[in-house]
């Protein structure tokens, strides 16, 4: 009786079990089938997601439910994706059941953790036989202390994962442990499947091939020594799909509108390439962004590229701009038309990345006057940028002052952008530029 399936709605007729004689997986399959039968669910509304390992091939025994046989340990992640789509975008009709072993659960522990945290409506039935059966019986992170396997011949010296406790700490709302031979396992599984939100059942099993021959290990020892009473999840809470539909879906958060209408004009012929260099947090990249937008508002093409160290809030901040009346093809700066250096961090970076060595006699260099001397082929203007404008306005004020002199993009467009961004504080920029103008050499 144990070796073949009884006739039920969900399994194949006369299916022959692929498992070794006496393996706990026989009970597992029968109880899962019994649970589905008891729940009387339309098999089209059931999806069994399994992965690799002896228990993973269980999908081939089921005739009518949908099955997803996945990669080792990842079944819970695939099931999460299925449930997110089903629960939020479809009619939430599916019961998604993960069939996983202790090996798979070790490999994909993060997927169980995250599914429990999210409280996705997925049921995980974990077949824990304390080892990896299919690949030669090596111990798993679920093996008990002193457990003998081909990879722990002297007995396991590392304590096992307590999955029930982990799941509890992740906020799982249904947690149960059972032994494969428990008479009520079918009804436990049925309860878990019916449970709204994440549910996990740990089923303790014997691997007759690898566990039994090397260990004093039978149903009785398993029952007495390994069964614990960490059952019971945290209080019921809303599942992820329900919360997502309530709080996120269709939530019309205002997103930034970056649309620019070219309402101004510019007489620029050809392209101009500008490098802005300063210190993170001093609005260097914002200055560049406003200039790019103003260039587009002037009817030009424009590109902007930023660079900063890995941590975004400290060290240098660099931005490269290109404005052109023609399509911009090459996006690098092989020869800058202007370089603005607003701080010592900025100077260090333009020296290091070769910007200054690519300058030519016509390149306009605007540098804060407190910076140390540096070598460069361009025309260097030293301005009291930081003294007059403070660090946080230095880059934008220098760029705007340069534009007043050169007229590359529409100054009206730039003022509109600055006034729009800084509102009642934009007066400082107007004052800065007045003060800077006399210093600029071109």
């Amino acid at each position, binding site marked *: 009786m144990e070796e073949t399936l009884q006739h039920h709605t969900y399994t194949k007729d006369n299916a022959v079990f692929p498992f070794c004689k006496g393996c706990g997986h026989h009970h597992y399959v029968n109880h899962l089938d019994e649970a589905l039968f008891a729940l009387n669910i339309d098999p089209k509304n059931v999806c069994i997601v399994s992965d690799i390992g002896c228990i993973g091939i269980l999908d081939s025994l089921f005739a009518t439910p949908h099955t*997803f046989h996945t990669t080792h340990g990842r079944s819970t992640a695939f099931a999460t994706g299925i449930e*997110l789509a089903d629960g939020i975008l479809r009619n939430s009709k599916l019961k998604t059941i993960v069939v996983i072993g202790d090996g798979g659960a070790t490999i994909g522990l993060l997927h169980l953790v995250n599914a429990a945290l999210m409280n996705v409506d997925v049921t995980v039935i974990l077949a824990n036989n304390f080892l990896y059966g299919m690949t030669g019986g090596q111990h798993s992170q679920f093996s008990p202390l002193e457990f003998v396997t081909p990879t722990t011949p002297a007995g396991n010296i590392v304590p096992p994962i307590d999955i029930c406790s982990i799941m509890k700490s992740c906020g799982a709302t249904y947690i149960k442990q059972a032994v494969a031979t428990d008479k009520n396992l079918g009804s436990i599984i049925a309860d878990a499947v019916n449970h709204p939100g994440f549910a996990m059942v740990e089923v303790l099993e014997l691997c007759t091939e690898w566990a039994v021959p090397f260990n004093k290990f039978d149903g009785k020892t398993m029952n007495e020594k390994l069964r614990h009473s960490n059952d019971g999840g945290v209080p019921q809470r809303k599942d992820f799909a329900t919360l997502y539909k309530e709080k996120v879906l269709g939530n019309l958060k205002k997103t930034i509108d970056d649309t620019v209408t070219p309402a101004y004009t510019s007489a620029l012929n050809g392209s101009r390439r500008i490098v802005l260099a300063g210190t993170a947090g001093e609005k260097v990249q914002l200055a560049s962004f406003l200039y790019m937008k103003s260039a587009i508002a002037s009817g030009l093409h424009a590109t902007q590229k930023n660079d900063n160290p890995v941590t975004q809030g400290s060290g240098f901040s660099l931005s490269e701009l290109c404005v052109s009346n023609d399509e911009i093809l090459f996006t690098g700066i092989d020869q800058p038309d202007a370089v603005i250096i607003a701080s010592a961090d900025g100077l260090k970076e333009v020296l290091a990345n070769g910007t200054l060595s690519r300058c030519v006699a016509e390149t306009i260099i605007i540098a804060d006057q407190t910076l140390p001397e540096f070598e460069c082929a361009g025309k260097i203007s030293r301005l009291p940028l930081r003294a007059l404008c403070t660090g946080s306005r230095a880059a934008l004020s220098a760029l705007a002052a340069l534009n007043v002199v050169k007229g590359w993009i529409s100054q009206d467009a730039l003022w509109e952008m600055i006034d729009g961004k800084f509102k009642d504080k934009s007066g400082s920029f107007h004052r800065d530029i007045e003060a800077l103008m006399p210093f600029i050499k071109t």
Partner: protein
Amino acid sequence: MIAEGALHAGCQFFAGYPITPASGVYKAMIEQLPQRNGVAISAPDEISALAYCVGASGRGIKAMTASSGPGWSLMIETVQYALMTELPVVIALVQRLGPSTGGATQNGQADILFTEFCTSGGYTIPMFAPSTPQECYEVTTIAFKWAELLRTPVIILSDKEVGMMSEDVDFIKLVSAPVSYRKEFSTKNGTEHHTYDFQNLEDVPLFSPVGGDYKVTMTGSAHDKKGTLQKNSRETIDVLLHLQAKIDAHAEEMSIIRIDNEEQANTLVVSFGITARTAREAIRRARLAGKKVRNANVISLFPVPGTALQAAAAGVKRIVVAEENLTGQYRSVIRSLFPDQEIVGVNAVGTLITPKNIMDALL
């Protein structure tokens, strides 16, 4: 613009893990998808991200993720699963400097071979490379079209320069592929549903979602047309041949190369991604200097657009392949197409190829 293209193409599911330089796509999808009644999930890692997408695709939803080299490394197991189970998914990869975590804000075009040849078994994954924001939009709609029509993963291979640059985009001029959906199975055509059914090897099986009216048997292991685990049955081998045949059968249709012709050209420049723009600039300057040169901007990197490339190279003596990697990856892929022509590379690592670099390689 990749996100914009995805929304236009009917993408309803995004799961991702942020990584420079692909975070822009992630951020845009997290912001915009829920507003359009789609699902955008911040996954705890890249393995979960792609697995969520493939699961959602199994439920019948158009799905996409975005990443870069280090994250892509973690997705390779799952992309193979999508390929084997014939589940459509679009993966937008914005390349950065490798190997390993490499350089987050430095450009690279060095993940071509790594990405294309990531499957055990060597199956062709369609791959498209945009060079402008407009092309990011267009190519994304094309990627969704082929993912759906061929039931296969499709890669968008962008790079940091294209992906992280801010630039003007004329929305009126955007081009897109027609919005396509995988063809669904129904009993109306009188057949029984098998998850991987086909008549001819190149046919695409009609789709039915998990949770639909017909039992679905998904498996990443070798299987027959029903999805039953098999070893060496004729039918199982046929299923494997079919995975490649369905792509090969549409290779010509997928081919996209943008040619800037010059009948008398001595040199053809071949490039893609950000380097395609540099090449166009180099060619503009070279022609001003009186050189005869032709340009081919390859957008469909795989399947290799062999016929179109050979036609583009007709009559030239030298082919220059410009790409930002150490060994000339795409050059090594297309070299055998040109047995009688000289083929040279312009390469760079960690720095942009300049127009001058390309001009120096012209005849």
